[in-house]
């Protein structure tokens, strides 16, 4: 009679281990919102209660963003004059190569709003925090960090589908910032786990870990 119970327990613990992996920070199957390392906001607050990811020793290599480049055989230079369109679209897609931190590239206005949002979130005023982030997004809709923080607020509020969608949206703007993308996947993992989708959570965490590994070189 005990056997199935034991097997279930074993399976559960194994899956928990699988979820835990080598992530020493995590003690639960999926990271909690607090454990999702928040992006270092460019604030000078003395007591930042949030862990800041260690700076990467090597700049993360940029993946999968190809500037428009015709196939080499004929080696034609990009025909900017005759095709201003392709470069125009693609130029905006060029990842910021030099950027190896996830500090917000935002304007002072966005940084100010982001700081407010962080403080409000710490005080548990989640909806006020969301309002600040939406204000900031109106100024910089392409700022991945803002979408990610909004995803985190929705996660705190238990709006799991929104949290996941917003985190995915954040990664559309990540422009090769692997650490930021990894954080988004941890948010997604948490949202899926809270929804009871352990398999999905596991996959999301797997992606986060791959990205982390790649980011750390």
């Amino acid at each position, binding site marked *: 009679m005990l056997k199935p119970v034991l097997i279930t327990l074993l399976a559960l613990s194994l899956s928990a281990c699988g979820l835990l992996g080598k992530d020493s920070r995590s003690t639960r199957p999926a990271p909690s919102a607090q454990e999702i390392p928040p992006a270092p906001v460019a604030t000078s607050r003395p007591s930042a209660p949030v862990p800041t990811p260690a700076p990467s020793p090597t700049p993360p*290599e*940029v*993946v*999968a*963003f*190809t*500037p*428009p*480049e*015709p*196939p*080499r*055989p*004929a080696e*034609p230079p990009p*025909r900017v004059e005759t*095709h*201003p*369109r*392709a470069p*125009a*679209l*693609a130029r*905006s*897609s060029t990842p910021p190569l030099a950027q190896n931190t996830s500090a917000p590239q935002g*304007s*002072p*206005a966005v*940084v*100010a*709003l982001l700081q407010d949002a962080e403080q409000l979130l710490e005080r548990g005023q989640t*909806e*006020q925090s*969301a*309002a*600040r982030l*939406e*204000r900031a*997004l*109106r*100024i910089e*809709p*392409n700022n991945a960090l803002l979408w990610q923080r*909004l995803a985190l607020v929705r996660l705190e509020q238990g709006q799991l589908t*929104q949290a996941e*969608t*917003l985190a*995915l*949206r954040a990664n*559309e*703007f990540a*422009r090769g910032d692997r650490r930021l993308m990894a954080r988004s996947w941890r948010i997604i993992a948490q949202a899926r786990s809270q929804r009871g989708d352990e398999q999905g959570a596991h996959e999301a965490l797997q992606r986060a870990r791959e990205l982390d590994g790649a980011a750390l070189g």
Partner: protein
Amino acid sequence: MPASRSSPNPRHAARLRPSRQRGWLWLLFLVPLLGVLAGLGALVLYSIPLDQQIRAEFEGRRWALPARVFARPLELYVGLPLTQAALERELGLLHYRRGDTQATGEFRVQDGGVIIHTRGFPFADGHEPARRVRVHFEGGRISRLGDVSSGESLGIMRLEPSLIANIYPAHGEDRVLVRLEDVPQSLIDALLATEDRKFYEHLGIDFIAVFRAAVANLQAGRTVQGGSTITQQLVKNYFLTRERSLRRKFNEAIMALLLERHYSKADILEAYLNEVYLGQDGSRAIHGFGLAAQFYFQRHLSELSAEHMALLVAVIRGPSYYDPRRHPQRALERRNRVLDMMVAQGVLDSASASQARARPLGVTEKAPSGITPFPAFVQLVREQLRRDYAEEVLQSEGLLIFTTLDPLVQLYAEEALSNRLRQLETARRLEEGTLQGAVVVTTTDSGGEVLAVVGDRQVRYAGFNRALNAQRPIGSLIKPVVFLAALERPQEYTLATLLDDDPLEVRMPHGATWAPRNYDRQFHGQVTLMDALVRSYNVSTARLGLSLGLEQVVTQFERMVPGKWPAPYPSLLLGAVELTPFEVAQMYQGIAAGGYSAPLRAIREVLSTEGALLQRYPLSLRQVADPAAVYLLTAALHEVTRRGTAASLQNVLPRDKAVAGKTGTTDELRDTWFAGYSGEHLAVVWVGRDDNQSTGLTGASGALPVWGDLMKPLLRRGLEQPPPQGIEWYLIDQQTGLLANDDCEQTTWMPFVQAFIPSDWAPCARPASPPPDANDTPIIF
């Protein structure tokens, strides 16, 4: 009359009951005394209901306040794309005046920048203080922003939002509530000097004033002076009737005494300042000084000068008789008399008074309309509010509704539509007024906020709102949905996939055949998927849709426009489905935002009249398409504006700012559409006729020019959808859909999902090039 003073309330009257007296001699006194007592008792009994009435009126008074609808506040920060002209236009909408910026509501241009003395505003997420700020511009953006007094630079600040509508009942009172401490003392001085000099001394009735008035009126033989105190006037305003009976006067007097007994002078004065009737705007009654200041001068109370205050006080005596807009001379004389009385009472020095006397009335030419200048947008707001609030609540609770309307964008949209329709009519020799149109503008990426709605070329006219209510066939505007359904299968379709544009006949179930034709009456053989969209070919699109399966297209359509399930007929593939311009905007918003659709919102938040947050309408996202597929689609829609059906935009818009869009035209040229987006704005334009006759225009010649005119002042950010992971751009030969190089004549850059690039070189490139394979193709990561 004196008797009423001794019986202010029943409890007090009870204590007046005399002790019982014995002895018949006292009868002589008792009879008249009983008479007096009976009179007193009757008065007490008479006063009881009046007391209840006046107290209920005063304390339970919940002024029915209309909901106020505000536009978005303009956020100022360094880097904001904004010209000085646009800022001045915004300040104009907010009724800022040019001045020395000592007072709020003033601005001036100085040293290449603008100094504004802002009014401040209590926003839901924090108070924006009134302050003097200096704004500098460079290259079409704000380059510096600082506080003038502290000299510090500001990160971000907001101007107050402009009031765009009030939600009234059909008839009724309107007011802007003010607190006593917010009313300038000089206004109160002016009021008391004119209307009630003994206000702080009398008990509700000023008998000397009554006497003085009576004498003056007797001498003049008509009513020239009133003896009513502020308290009496307040009572009169509470129960405003035209009745001029003695009984009413008597009741008013009793109630005035009762009010004074129960409440402080400050309470009574504050109530009066908010209650007094000061004007009429159609069926809307203007009550209180807060609203009257706006109604006559477009100023806040704190921004009034002596002559303004005197005029408001002057109007009290007869808002219709002394209406400064209809009877300026009468109003001027009365105003100057008020100024004299202020001097006589020592609340204004004679130098200031003579200065004020020399000034004109200062009344704005037209009364600010209680009716909204943006009826189409406000209708959208009301529809979205109706889901959450009952109509009575909107009309009476004084809710503050903060919307997403961008007045600057709205004005551009209005100008673009009405000017361009007039031009089209002139150019085509159409009778003026033949064409109609609608425009919807939203943000591209930051969560589906509706910035502008135009529902009629008569933009201020609140008639049929075509933007929200005109259901029209969308024609080729549907094609992006068909192509999106294809591109979501990257293993089957790329932008370079060749489609068949040869004649097509579809046998329908009931025996008829459906044979789509192209607009140019030609067939084009093999065309790339991108070209089929860029040139808006019907035949190849129909064939593509049929091979995808109509159900597939319907499903994709419903994802973009929730709740809409068009019938799965082949004609759907060419746009035989009716949508409103607003619904089209929802459909394209998902594409413009990279596959993440947000329900279009016109409201950000609703606050109670005290400023407490009642409801937020937050940003929410729904993924409606694969971002990679949407990226490819946007590349094709961008090509539409470069060399396709919307190529004429090249002559209108700056070429370094990429835009994307699609034209649409329906049978017999009845409806002409353009839906397009930049990195910042999505706009949908419909041009057609109310009688559904042919316009003689296509999407490219009707709606597109309106769109171009609208985007010209707005286009600050070109397309900036970041490419999803694994997207690569290649030069493609348009004939074959294969990889091209410089040797090829007609080539196009196309993005591909990494794993599905064309595997071969086009013949034009082949002689020089070995066929690329996975190892050979140099892809720079």
